[in-house]
């Protein structure tokens, strides 16, 4: 199959074949998921030494493990002997994990500490060569643990670039940071991962239409009026493939007493860590994506975290968690948990609509004839690059500045030569 012609950067068109080509998908494993910084875990999941949690980076099964020295490390969850997954549970605590197959034992620091029948190995066999494979780069950014498989790649901060300004709004919302609540959801759906990723990167355009059923219930407020309100409270940003949508300061219907006070206090306190403009954003409605596949949604009291896990060209898993402010009162924590249960998951009244759209796009675009006609990302105008202190390509909403920003970054990475 011919490789789809990647459009020139900036022309706001994409070839539909990007969702279907199996060769591109394999390339993405190396060029996107092998090079980018990916979310692995939140510190609150690993309070004690020996705690571990399992996750994945593309096809790689990962174990994130707090060592006996308190240091958090991440490893490929695969025995160095013959490859068995050494850990088969979602989370737990252990100082040492023994591989089920032949019982090679690995310490929480990744060392190979036990080899049955050790005496029958040749002298050339050095256990130091056969420890767990570490995720080569790791960054704990205010509790959010990111990893990268690109040994010589850029730092997490360089990877965020100027988008760090916005990421800090979420990451540093409170001094105490977050708790990631127990439990998660894995939702497997028949879509290419990029249909999800492009949308959350900056598609606010669809909200009143795809989500018309909840708009009719009054959940989306005056969303159609956003554009008129200017750049102050409602805007979108695209920067290096990362994206942000800011949706004013909506008050949830039937918000519990104390909600506005609570949020106000958060906003005030944030000024101790952030600029006033940033601090003001901490309690906005926020949809923030870190390229390529991580999404935060903070909206109507819910604080949702998810990522897109590619399975094949036509299959993707979404992994969902709930965030709460560490130290928040029980009612505020519960408010986030319930809102995530209501809106942001396979049974959610918001996300189920989105999945329906992505699946419909897969079908609409599959045909070879259809693929000759490019997709359109023209929406948005008057994009400003840096507005006052605010960095990135900024536009009022709705705009496809963030969506196309995702594609520009994707193209940039896919054009790089494959690793030697």
């Amino acid at each position, binding site marked *: 199959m011919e490789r789809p012609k990647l459009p020139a950067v900036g022309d706001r068109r994409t070839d539909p074949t990007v969702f279907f080509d199996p060769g591109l998908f394999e390339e993405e494993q190396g060029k996107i998921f092998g090079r980018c910084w990916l979310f692995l875990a939140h510190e609150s999941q690993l309070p004690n030494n020996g705690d571990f949690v399992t996750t994945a980076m593309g096809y790689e099964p990962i174990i994130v493990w707090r060592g006996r020295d308190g240091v958090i490390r991440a490893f490929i969850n695969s025995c160095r002997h013959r490859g068995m997954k050494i850990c088969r549970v979602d989370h737990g605590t252990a100082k040492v994990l023994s591989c089920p197959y032949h019982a090679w034992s690995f310490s929480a620091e990744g060392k190979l500490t036990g080899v049955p029948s050790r005496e029958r190995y040749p002298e050339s066999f050095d256990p130091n060569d056969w420890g767990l494979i570490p995720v080569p780069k790791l960054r704990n950014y205010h509790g959010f643990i990111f990893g990268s498989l690109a040994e010589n790649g850029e730092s997490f901060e360089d990877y965020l670039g100027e988008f760090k300004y916005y990421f800090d709004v979420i990451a540093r919302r409170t001094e105490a940071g977050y708790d990631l609540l127990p439990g998660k959801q894995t939702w497997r759906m028949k879509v290419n991962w990029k249909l999800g990723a492009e949308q959350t990167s900056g598609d606010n355009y669809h909200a009143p239409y795809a989500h018309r059923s909840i708009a009719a219930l009054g959940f989306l407020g005056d969303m159609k009026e956003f554009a008129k309100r200017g750049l102050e409270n409602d805007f979108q940003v695209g920067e290096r493939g990362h994206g942000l949508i800011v949706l004013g300061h909506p008050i949830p219907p039937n918000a519990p007493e104390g909600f506005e006070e609570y949020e106000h206090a958060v906003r005030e306190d944030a000024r101790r860590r952030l600029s006033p403009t940033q601090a003001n954003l901490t309690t906005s409605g926020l949809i923030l994506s870190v390229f390529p596949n991580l999404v935060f949604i903070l909206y109507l009291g819910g604080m949702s975290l998810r990522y897109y896990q590619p399975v094949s060209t036509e299959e993707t898993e979404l992994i969902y968690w709930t965030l709460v402010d560490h130290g928040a009162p029980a009612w505020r924590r519960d408010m986030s948990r319930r809102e995530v249960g209501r809106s942001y*998951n396979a049974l959610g009244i918001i996300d189920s609509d989105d999945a329906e759209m992505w699946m419909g796009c897969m079908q609409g675009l599959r045909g070879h004839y259809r693929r000759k006609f490019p997709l359109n990302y023209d929406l948005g105008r008057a994009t400003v690059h840096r507005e006052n202190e605010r960095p990135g390509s900024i536009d009022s909403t709705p705009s496809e500045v963030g969506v196309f920003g995702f594609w520009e970054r994707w193209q940039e990475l896919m054009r790089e030569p494959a690793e030697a």
Partner: protein
Amino acid sequence: MSVSFEVTQRFTDLLVREAWARDNSRFDEWVAFFDDELRYWAPSRLFLERGQENLGKAELFCHIDEDKPGFLLRIKRLTSGLTYTDEPPPRTRRLITNVLVLEADDSNAEVISYFMMFRSHPGHPDESIVGHRRDKWVRRGADWRIRERMIVIDQDKLTSYLGLL
């Protein structure tokens, strides 16, 4: 066994009627099966060392966790005709088996039932989920109502939208 066959029959019959109402999108009829003090929830599941899973764990992620107003809100959405997951109407089928009355007296009962739910909708492959429900029934006058439904899904990964509600 302390529960008479009659009682098992009664709740079997109620559960079959409830599924029939829901599978036919007769929401008025369906809502009448649920009490005003409702909790309707489905805890998320993990694979953990034996004995570590606790579905009653505080603050556990739930696929859904609604009280009666939240339940009614969702039904309002489903009956609005505006919901793309439900227009055109999907075909759902809730096969109910293994009805087991754990305890029952004149005013309360706790009933297990197993299910296999099937759903077909254009745009994606057919789906099914398997699991069990633990329902707490309460008598209101002549009628029995579900005051708490806990839905426990056995699948590891959810697929599609499901007709859980």
